[in-house]
């Protein structure tokens, strides 16, 4: 079973990964975006860990709802509403339980990913964060490590795609040949689950 502590560790691990990889995320965002993905997410996840520490939410759902609200209030751009909605909707789907099973979490995360697709209008193959998140949710039944591998593979697989959503879509065919920064940061988020689980 996964408790509120697990979800706090997930946010801390993700914040650390974003800190570590910020320069790479910004570098990926330069040729097909506007060179700020790393710094924007850094600002957001730093706010998340600060708020989680200060308010110390007691249920898995409350941790993710708080984290989502922080991202919406601090990140800006498209990433703020999209990542914020992902965590808020996942948290909402977890309800008020003090502990949730891995299956319940997988279902909740699927609801979160569905909400991101509805908000941003992206589908798999559009070269967005969805290309890492959907395979990760599909693999979550086989454990966190499998989900991490699926997300990383999904992020790498965005390289040959032509972007159809987000700022990279303005480039048309010139977006081909670059790995999507949003899919890459989504893979970091999923990798944080493995770390939070102490695997």
């Amino acid at each position: 079973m996964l408790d509120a502590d697990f979800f706090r560790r997930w946010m801390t691990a993700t914040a650390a990964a974003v800190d570590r990889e910020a320069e790479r995320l910004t570098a990926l965002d330069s040729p097909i975006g506007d060179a700020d993905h790393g710094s924007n997410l850094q600002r957001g996840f730093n706010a998340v860990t600060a708020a989680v520490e200060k308010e110390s939410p007691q249920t898995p759902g409350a941790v993710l709802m708080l984290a989502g609200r922080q991202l919406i209030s601090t990140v800006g751009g498209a990433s703020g509403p999209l990542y914020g909605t992902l965590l808020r909707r996942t948290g909402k789907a977890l309800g008020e339980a003090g502990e949730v099973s891995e299956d319940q979490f997988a279902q909740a995360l699927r609801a979160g990913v569905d909400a991101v697709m509805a908000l941003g209008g992206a589908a798999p193959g559009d070269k967005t964060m969805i290309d890492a998140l959907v395979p990760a949710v599909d693999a979550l039944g086989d454990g966190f490590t499998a989900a991490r591998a699926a997300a990383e593979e999904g992020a790498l697989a965005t390289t040959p795609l032509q972007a159809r959503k987000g700022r990279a879509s303005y480039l048309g065919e010139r977006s081909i040949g670059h790995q999507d920064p949003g899919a890459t940061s989504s893979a970091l988020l999923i990798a944080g689950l493995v770390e939070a689980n102490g695997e």
Partner: protein
Amino acid sequence: MKMLINVAESVVTDALRGMAAAHPELVVDVEKRVIVRRDAPVEGKVALVSGGGSGHEPLHGGFVGPGMLSAACPGEVFTSPVPDQMVRAAAAVDSGAGVLFIVKNYTGDVLNFDMAAELAEDEGIQVAKVLVNDDVAVTDSLYTAGRRGTGATLFVEKIAGAAADEGQPLERVEAIGRQVNENSRSFGVALSACTTPAKGSPTFDLPPGELELGIGIHGEPGRERRAMMTSGEIADFAVGAILEDMPPRNPVLVLVNGMGGTPLLELYGFNAEVQRVLAERGVNVAHTLVGNYVTSLDMAGASVTLCQVDEELLRLWNAPVKTPGLRWGM
């Protein structure tokens, strides 16, 4: 790249502190990042709120004042502001007549303003929105995020601002804003990439002797790269792209806009070529504006925006305005 800054993290905050010191007629909340007319809310009048990433100055904060915006929300450099800023701005300027959000069509701006509109309505503020999407370099289809909002934002903010200043109701101010956007088209070129403070080096690599055609305002590369062209050739290409998309029936307002790193000397020379092409194509020019209005940090280059105007839009365009970035008639 050398920059006149302290540290990259404080660029926006430092600029807002300086803006507050230079413009006592504005209330600049440096911490919450909202710029408001000091006399807001103006009784009985619709209020206009816009915002977007920083790095496009004077857009949007420089267009706050009588006859134009009531408030602006600056985000981080090239990053849309957050809903909290827009709700705060709407609450500060709403007189009860409602608030019009003017939103440039970028995924981030649209999502954050949509969330803000919902939150503001929950607080009892009537909100309408106008989306600006004038950039002909982007194909508007299901397979893109749609056309970007660029130079036409200035026309929408000025003309809708004048309508609000006259006391026209929210649905009318909104309709005028939409009409301006639908009758505006832009095309931009870059001679150099821009450098964001966070990255410290140019956002894309543009060799000497080449230019980018069809750029946006966020340092993103354009659709096509070519060998460097003359000012006249660029004017032929840019105005041609606009007229192909929108053959004007009415006279046009012309904005020859610098991207931030091109001297006015070159912009005026470019304007001469733009006017030549318009004359050759039989387009009547009602009014022309030349300068740096919707910029992209230190990018060298320019954009052309044409806005078709009927008598009412032209009257509203000519109405008095008093903002840091645009000022006439008062």
